[in-house]
């Protein structure tokens, strides 16, 4: 019997890792953290200005209508759900649902954006009418820019999945882009609450 013990067999290191094992994933978390501060700042500015003004929205500007934005919010949430479904699918290796989910999400994202434009072209005040207009147009505009940019990014990721690049254990690009998509959806909810619900409370 030998006194030496064999060192245990050395495992092989994977090259492709997902989630918190991957630097890229952390990079995306960092970006999201930054954006949360920006959106949080916008919301804080909104309430600050609300407190600084005697009436809010100011005289002559009606409270925003609720119906269209609410439908639109549901649409946005649905697009997020579609992305999550696609994400689940690729983990199971289901290429078809992966592609379908993304197509649905992209379409819903574009619908959201279009309805946004419809909604905003209906208002008879703009950002230069009053600080109220400044902050609400900025909040919406900033978020809409995010929707557009995830849609752009989504198109590329969709092209990649159409070329069959994603595998159950290798889809970091898709995972990260889903993460961001879901963030853009979720961050809309506090904005929605701020702009549409809080004036009615």
């Amino acid at each position: 019997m030998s006194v030496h013990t064999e060192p245990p067999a050395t495992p092989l290191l994977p090259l492709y890792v997902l989630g918190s094992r991957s630097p890229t994933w952390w990079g995306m978390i960092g970006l999201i953290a930054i954006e949360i501060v920006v959106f949080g700042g916008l919301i804080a500015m909104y309430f600050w200005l609300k407190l600084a003004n005697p009436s809010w929205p100011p005289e002559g500007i009606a409270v925003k209508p609720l119906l269209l934005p609410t439908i639109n919010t549901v649409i946005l949430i649905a697009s997020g759900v579609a992305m999550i479904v696609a994400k689940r699918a690729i983990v199971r290796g289901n290429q078809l649902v992966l592609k379908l989910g993304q197509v649905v999400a992209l379409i819903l994202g574009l619908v959201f954006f279009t309805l946004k434009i419809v909604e905003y072209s209906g208002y008879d005040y703009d950002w230069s009418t009053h600080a109220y207009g400044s902050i609400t147009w900025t909040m919406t505009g900033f978020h809409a820019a995010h929707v557009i940019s995830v849609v752009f990014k989504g198109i590329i990721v969709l092209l990649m999945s159409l070329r069959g690049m994603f595998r159950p254990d290798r889809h970091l690009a898709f995972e990260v882009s889903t993460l961001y998509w879901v963030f853009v959806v979720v961050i809309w909810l506090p904005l929605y609450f701020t702009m549409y619900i809080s004036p009615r409370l």
Partner: protein
Amino acid sequence: MAESRYDGYGPQFSPPPEDYRPDPDLLTRTWGPLPGIRGFFAVVNYQVVGMRFIVTGFIFLLLGGIQALVMRTQLAQPNLDLVSSELYQQLFTMHGVTMMFFFAVPIFEGLAMYLLPLMIGSRDMAMPRLGAFGYWIYLIAGITLYTGFFLGLGPDAGWFAHAPLSSDRNFTPAMGMDLWVSAIGMLEISALVAAIEIVVTIFKLKAPGMSMARIPIFVWAMLVMAMMIIFAMPAVLLVTVAVGLDRMAGTHFFNAAMGGDPTLYQHVFWFFGHPEVYIIFTPALGVVSAVLVTFARRPMVAYSIVALSFIAMGILSFGVWVHHFFAVGIPPIGLSFFAVASMMVSIPSGIQMFAFIGTVWTGRPIVNTPFLFLIGFVVIFVLGGVTGVMLAAVPFNWQVHDSYFVVAHLHYVLIGGALFPLFAGLYYWFPKWTGKLLDETLGKWQFAIMFVGFNVTFFIQHILGFQGMARRVYTYDADLGWGTFNMVSTVGSFVLAAGILVFVFNVFWSLWRGRDAGQDPWLAPTLEWSVPSPPPQYTFLEPPVVRSLYPLWDPGAPDPEFDTAADRGERMRPQIRQDVRETFGTSIMDGEPESRVNLRDNSLWPFFAALAVGFAFVGSMFSLWFFPIGALLFYGTMIGWHWPFSKEIAT
């Protein structure tokens, strides 16, 4: 060895080659730059990018210093007419902006970039292209700002540009403030991407075995700095955008007549502004710790308490922003809260000071130039810190707010708390970067001149503040009796500048004639001293593993009983390929090897992406339409950046 690129799907698990041996030539080819002028713009290596940050930051120090000297000359006597009031307001704004945004933050980011991979045993930063991108934006922002300044269009509302002066074209019709918006906007982006890169690198690329309890204090400091950037800088991005919109698009965020609120600006800006000063101070503390341990020749006492004090300082500093505008008429309850918080934020600093003293106490100190700068740091910073505590006492603050007392405080903490540590660090790491030692004698002279010059310049400004001298005045009347002290201060500032000139001379002289440093001239404890000076492009011939907090002093015993992360890393080492840019990816807390990380290589796209961002920001000074166009261009460059969309990116 043939391939130098991934061809799509690489093998998920590749067994180590049979004939593994470290191959410097191959590594050099893998990690080296591209040839020619293209290589200059495409290089992403952390040493190059980090050094570019450091050198550029230092140039900004000189520029900001020259502005300070012009201001001091103008103030030397009452009613001098050296510069016009118009130029003077640009001078102090440029000085503040340059020092806070273009010198202090980037130069410490540069130190982090250059030193983190070396200290944590990685072959590069986690996102090399992002680092290069950050540098190019920084450079574009600086060039934009200074072009405007030399055209006579410098920003002119002070470095913190309170609204509505800054946000209303009726009050600041010149283009200077648009320039401020653009330049600061770009700089923030640069700082933010650098911060992300630093955090991710520290999280994921530590050498096997380097748990969170084994990272050098310097790394802790950089981590806290980066986290603070991530949570603070977005606020200033927001506020600059709001100012830009007020000026360009006709919004009314800060226009009281239209429902806006000028104090809103101050809240959002200083929510960033206070953490900003600690963003500058924390990495300086990291430098201090690194230098101190080496020259005290003993470990840092109370390592974990010091690390915790950094974190506490980082968190607390987000709760004190109102102390920069106690005088705007805040309800007493708010004043009390922020006064208490501002006092509390001093406690971590007390702990740090005592930890430094304790380390010297238990150490065997060598008093050479870097150590002298540490002494200077403690003396000057403590004086600045106690005036900070005074400023937090609200009624007293009302008396000295916006006076030269504050100017004195801020230079005591900034020069004592950042510039002196920076010089300590430069003396300490210069041999690592260049292979040459800086000259000791010159160094000691520099220290002495700077220390005396500094105190002569700024101590007396406390009294000027009491005498009623408000800051940002371009001149003053003789009957106020401020002439003598201002003269003393001016003379001091030239002495201080002479000290800095000695350093500039020392650098060139030592590069030319300096003594060879060798690998480890100071017999220092951390990993960067285990590689040749200057470090090869691939950094480590073999990826290191770490078994103790001070790996070069105390290698730590390999322990066959336990399969520690370091042991495993040692055995896995041959799996890290040498023909492509790979390094260990490890777990955050324990430094367990988890993966091989493939780092992106040289590329021109970061440069183009920065150009696109510059196009958007610079153009938006003229028309907001440049912004969406710039965004589209940026989008295009992003495609190029991630190309090829082979299977590699799909990982």
